[in-house]
């Protein structure tokens, strides 16, 4: 017993969980700060949260090229984890920046909001660094539970309630599947460590034929697919994205999704490598299904948030292409794409945050008619983000998509790439519709309520910079993404 404890303590290596630890700790401190703050003022918590994220960011960066394994191999803070952690931190930071003014506009400046975002981020970092299904599960739940709250954060708004509830029920439901899958895998392999599962498969090559093993793997997969909003587990996405507070929608579509991808990749590629042929077939179908459903349904959407939700589904589909490829390019493409997607999607949402009236009833196509004339800068910026989402050069979206599909082509999935690009072509229509409304229609309103505040402007500027920088000089980040792959 004594030995065990000692061994356990030796194996701990706090270094490996330091970033999440720091962030969680700071989040709790901020929770306390907000408890003692005056009701109705949350700005200081917001800035402190940003500070907390910056600190965490620096801590996380120490993991670059300096992999830290801890807790008997349950946590591995390597380049991969660092990369995804940075994505989540950036996403969280941008979210917080665009939230402050938004919360005040919506008359709900409750400062617990920010610590919750930090918790989510911490959970996401857990997921990205987890190498044991247990740690991954914990990270996932920390992330999810905080997000349930955030989605339903506007408790006076039925819409927000509904979003929170739907997310909660379906999330818990999918957790059931995930856990069941973990249990089955555990039953076959006797371990919950990703490496252990892989080792088992290596030792027992016929494990891939074991029904329980396959079923376990697939159920586990379903849990992650739910989080990344892949069809047919995507149905929650539009509703939740539409109902949740806009910055949270933005955050959900970037940070948690990236974390889910991180976990998915780690589990699939490291752990279930033995199922590669089955999984690639499955991912092939899922990728096509996801991007097609996302794009096609987005065509008929009028509500901008809902449209972007479908767009987000389709982008998850594109990202799955990288998993189909299952090769170095594909994987580093997913990393790169997640980063790109974070910037472009957060940017687009940030603009929506700005142009929404109180209650956000104007965030539909007609509501933004002529925006490009009344608010030229916002118009141009939103257009650039949309172009990036479309995948038009010289924006990051193009490079990301190109990189992604390159992976598929390199692995010989040419038809998948063809379907992918045709899907992009379909997507042009609904993104262009926004541009059409902004520029080709006469202004219906004067957008006088739009006041450009500094934090949101900063978040837009960062997103824009990211989109353009990665569009024109993608080399550095692509190399980092490559180094972050495993």
């Amino acid at each position, binding site marked *: 017993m004594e030995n065990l404890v000692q061994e356990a303590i030796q194996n701990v290596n706090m270094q490996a969980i330091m970033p999440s630890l720091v962030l969680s700790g700071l989040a709790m401190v901020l929770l306390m700060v907000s408890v003692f703050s005056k009701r109705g003022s949350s700005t200081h918590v917001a800035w402190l949260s940003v500070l907390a994220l910056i600190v965490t960011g620096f801590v996380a960066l120490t993991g670059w090229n300096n992999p830290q394994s801890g807790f008997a191999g349950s946590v591995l803070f390597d380049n991969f984890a660092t990369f995804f952690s940075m994505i989540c931190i950036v996403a969280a930071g941008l979210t917080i920046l665009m939230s402050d003014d938004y919360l005040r506009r919506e008359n709900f400046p409750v400062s617990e909001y920010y610590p919750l975002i930090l918790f989510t981020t911490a959970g996401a970092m857990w997921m990205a660094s987890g190498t044991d299904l*247990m740690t991954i*599960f*914990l990270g996932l*739940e920390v992330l999810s*539970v905080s997000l*349930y*709250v955030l989605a*339903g954060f506007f*408790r*006076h*708004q*039925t*819409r927000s*309630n*509904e*979003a*929170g*509830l*739907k997310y*909660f*029920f379906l999330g*818990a*439901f999918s*957790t*059931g599947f995930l*856990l*069941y899958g*973990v*249990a*089955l895998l*555990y*039953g076959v392999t*006797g*371990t*919950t460590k990703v490496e252990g599962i892989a080792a088992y498969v290596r030792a027992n090559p016929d494990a891939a034929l074991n029904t329980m093993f396959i079923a376990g793997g697939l159920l586990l997969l379903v849990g992650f697919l739910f989080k990344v909003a892949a069809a047919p587990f995507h149905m929650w996405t*539009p*509703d*939740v994205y*539409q*109902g949740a507070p806009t910055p949270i929608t933005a955050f959900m579509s970037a940070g948690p999704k990236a974390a889910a991808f991180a976990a998915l990749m780690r589990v699939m590629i490291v752990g279930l490598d033995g199922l590669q042929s089955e999984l690639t077939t499955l991912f092939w179908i899922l990728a096509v299904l996801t991007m097609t459903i996302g794009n096609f349904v987005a065509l008929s959407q009028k509500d901008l948030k809902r449209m972007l939700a479908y767009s987000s589904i389709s982008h998850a589909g594109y990202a799955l292409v990288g998993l189909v490829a299952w090769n170095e390019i594909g994987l580093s493409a997913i990393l790169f794409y997640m980063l790109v997607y974070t910037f472009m999607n957060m940017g687009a949402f940030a603009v929506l945050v700005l142009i929404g009236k109180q209650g956000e009833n104007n965030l539909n196509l007609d509501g933004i008619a002529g925006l490009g004339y009344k608010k030229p800068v916002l118009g141009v910026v939103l257009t650039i983000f949309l172009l990036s989402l479309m995948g038009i050069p010289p924006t990051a979206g193009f490079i990301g998509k190109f990189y992604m599909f390159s992976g598929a082509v390199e692995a010989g999935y040419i038809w998948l790439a063809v379907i992918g690009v045709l899907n992009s072509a379909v997507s042009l229509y609904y993104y262009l519709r926004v541009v059409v409304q902004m520029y080709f229609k006469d202004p219906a309103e004067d957008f006088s309520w739009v006041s450009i505040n500094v934090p949101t402007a900063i978040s837009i500027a960062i997103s824009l910079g990211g989109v353009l920088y990665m569009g024109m000089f993608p080399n550095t980040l692509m190399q980092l993404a490559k180094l972050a792959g495993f």
Partner: protein
Amino acid sequence: MITVNHYLLLSAILFAIGTFGVLTRKNAIVIFMCIEVMLNSVNLTFIALSRHVGNMDGQIFVFFVMTVAAAEAAVGLALMIAFYRNKDSIDVDDFNMLKW
């Protein structure tokens, strides 16, 4: 002789019942309880398998699952209360503002 298979079968049946309940029931609380049933069936599986494979990991997992379930319950019920305050209902048929 009750083998691990029996446990697994039982938990599978429980899981199916939970799933079925989620699909068919309209009351949010009941649905939530169905989900709890699902989670508990998973717990049962874990414990049975833990015994079967001979290590403690499964049992540890169960503790985490229980904790998480509790946390979810707290959040979920809070959300339901908020909804109930606005709509005077927790029938899932009323969660129908966001669609299409």
